């Protein structure tokens, strides 16, 4: 009917997220489960200590990256569905006007769960490719007896089937809630603007802001989920990058690389999704600004200018978050080993912070360049005609 496979292909971002999440989680958890099989063979005390350490880190990494990616996927999915309903509100309005029930339309949204399934299943099986190397690396010193790779059905159910079903269900439920708008609002594409009583006082007491400043504020306000998404992308970038620096010293290179990769993938996909939606959602506004004669630079400022401070706030929160998290992790993971292992010192890494900040600033400006390229290309006529 309305939604086809094509739409769910657009959810590549979510597929990539679930790919990463399942890939990493399966790597560590499959190893953990295979470890349990040889637990009885452990005799010496140093073996049990090592065993505990390895399982503990496995759990931390899996829950950390898995949790982070899961959260992002949920946010992205909700964001995407919202966007979908918003941009197809006329079609959906017509369906409702014809007499389709909310539930009947919402049911079609299960297809969004496919993106999760695709990513998850590919991630699950490709993690087996890396597994031999991973197992060997984890048991490099040969402290534990040989660990063989097994297929654990429970993980397949937990990492592939369960998330797919959950996401499909979530999509339907969320769409159902969102579709509960009056038909006429959908048909006329009336935006959800809360009419505030205090606007009057506000505009009178404050000095008149320029039109572009006001547009910037209105753009920010009209897409709150996007504000969250941008902040979250910066948060991920900042925390993951800085964490990977510390991981290199605290744990192993492997963790560092892995976390680094996840950080890059996460922040890039979220940022990218966010930005492209801003452009498509504001296509008409951009076209109209250009018709009237506002320059590309002015359009960019009005549409994207508001997000820059948000991004840096996200970065700051991410910095604090990774510091606290690592502090706790160092205490929890290494606390059990007592004197047997040297507890690494962990303090705030200024160098890592500065490098990440610079990298972040660069990345952000590059993405912004890309955006202004898009704005420049934004075809006035097509955009306006599609709006009829």
């Amino acid at each position, binding site marked *: 009917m309305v939604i086809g496979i094509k739409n769910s292909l657009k959810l590549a971002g979510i597929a990539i997220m679930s790919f990463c999440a399942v890939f990493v989680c399966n790597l560590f958890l499959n190893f953990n489960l295979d470890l349990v099989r040889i637990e009885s063979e452990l005799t010496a005390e140093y073996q049990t200590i090592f065993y505990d350490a390895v399982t503990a880190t496995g759990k931390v990494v899996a829950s950390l990256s898995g949790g982070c990616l899961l959260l992002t996927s949920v946010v992205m999915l909700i964001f995407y569905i919202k966007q979908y309903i918003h941009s197809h509100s006329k079609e959906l309005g017509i369906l409702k006007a014809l007499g389709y029930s909310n539930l009947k339309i919402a049911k079609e949204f299960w297809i969004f769960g496919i993106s999760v399934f695709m990513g998850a299943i590919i991630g699950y099986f490709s993690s087996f490719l890396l597994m031999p190397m991973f197992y060997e690396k984890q048991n490099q010193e040969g402290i534990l007896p040989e660990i063989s790779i097994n297929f654990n059905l429970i993980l397949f159910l937990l990492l592939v089937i369960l998330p797919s079903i959950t996401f499909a269900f979530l999509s339907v439920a969320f769409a159902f809630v969102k579709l509960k708008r009056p038909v006429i609002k959908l048909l006329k594409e009336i*935006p959800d603007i809360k009419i505030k009583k205090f606007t009057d006082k506000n505009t009178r007491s404050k000095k008149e802001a320029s039109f572009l400043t006001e547009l910037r504020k209105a753009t920010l306000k009209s897409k709150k989920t996007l504000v969250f998404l941008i902040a979250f992308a910066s948060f991920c970038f900042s925390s993951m990058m800085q964490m990977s620096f510390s991981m290199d010293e605290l744990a192993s290179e492997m963790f560092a690389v892995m976390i680094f990769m996840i950080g890059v993938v996460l922040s890039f996909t979220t940022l990218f999704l966010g930005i492209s939606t801003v452009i498509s959602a504001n296509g008409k506004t951009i076209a109209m600004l250009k018709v009237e*004669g506002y320059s590309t630079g002015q359009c960019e400022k009005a549409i994207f200018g508001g997000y820059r401070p948000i991004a840096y706030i996200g970065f700051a929160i991410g910095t604090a978050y990774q510091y606290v998290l690592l502090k706790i992790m160092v205490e929890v993971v290494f606390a059990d080993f007592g004197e047997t292992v040297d507890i690494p010192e962990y303090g705030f890494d200024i160098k890592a912070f500065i490098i990440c900040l610079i990298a972040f600033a660069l990345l952000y400006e590059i993405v912004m360049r890309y955006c202004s390229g898009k704005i420049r290309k934004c075809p006035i006529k097509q955009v306006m005609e599609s709006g009829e």
Partner: protein
Amino acid sequence: MIKIENIVKSYGEKENKQTILKNISLEIKDGDLVVILGASGSGKSTLLNVVSGLERPDSGKISYGEKELTSLSDSELTDFRKNNIGFIFHQYYLLPNMTAEKNVKMGAELANNKDYGEIIEAVGLEEKKRKYPSELSGGEQQRVSIARALAKKPKVLFMDEPTGALDEKTGRSVLDYILRLHKEKNFTAVMVTHNANIAETANTIIKMQSGEIWEILSNESPKTAYEIGW
């Protein structure tokens, strides 16, 4: 004066190629009120878009006095629109998340016009200026878009069926307002319509038929918005 020479514009590629404007030449005098009249699909809107610098022609020349539009870069073209051109479309194209007042301000700020409040009053929207476009009727939205175009103090005003989406009563009053303003401010106005009655209000009537100019008429005694049929 706007001078249009041998404009050709087509859409599509290869077999699907369709020439919409077939070698059009004409001149528009400063301060004139020109109506482009023609059947649906005859290329009126396309001509308007090309002449106003929203779209580029495949070939031909458009000059505003000394300035040749076809030789400008994209950003120069934007700048040109900013300083010279106003637009009114029958689909209004208001910014949905800005109030009526802010929509007018969008035009006003480009011309450093601080008195846009007067224009809002003049189009009779003083009471509704804090409302969002979705809370306004079609006629009210069109008046906002007129106010936005005029707040820019354009030298040339382009209108694509400005009354196309309005009923007779609102249509007449909007048209009357445009005509009175044209007399008062003396800008050049180009209006597209398929309604022959509306054409009677113009000084010059350009009749179009399938991408070509069929006839150009001078009208010595233009009628007012309330004298024409609807």
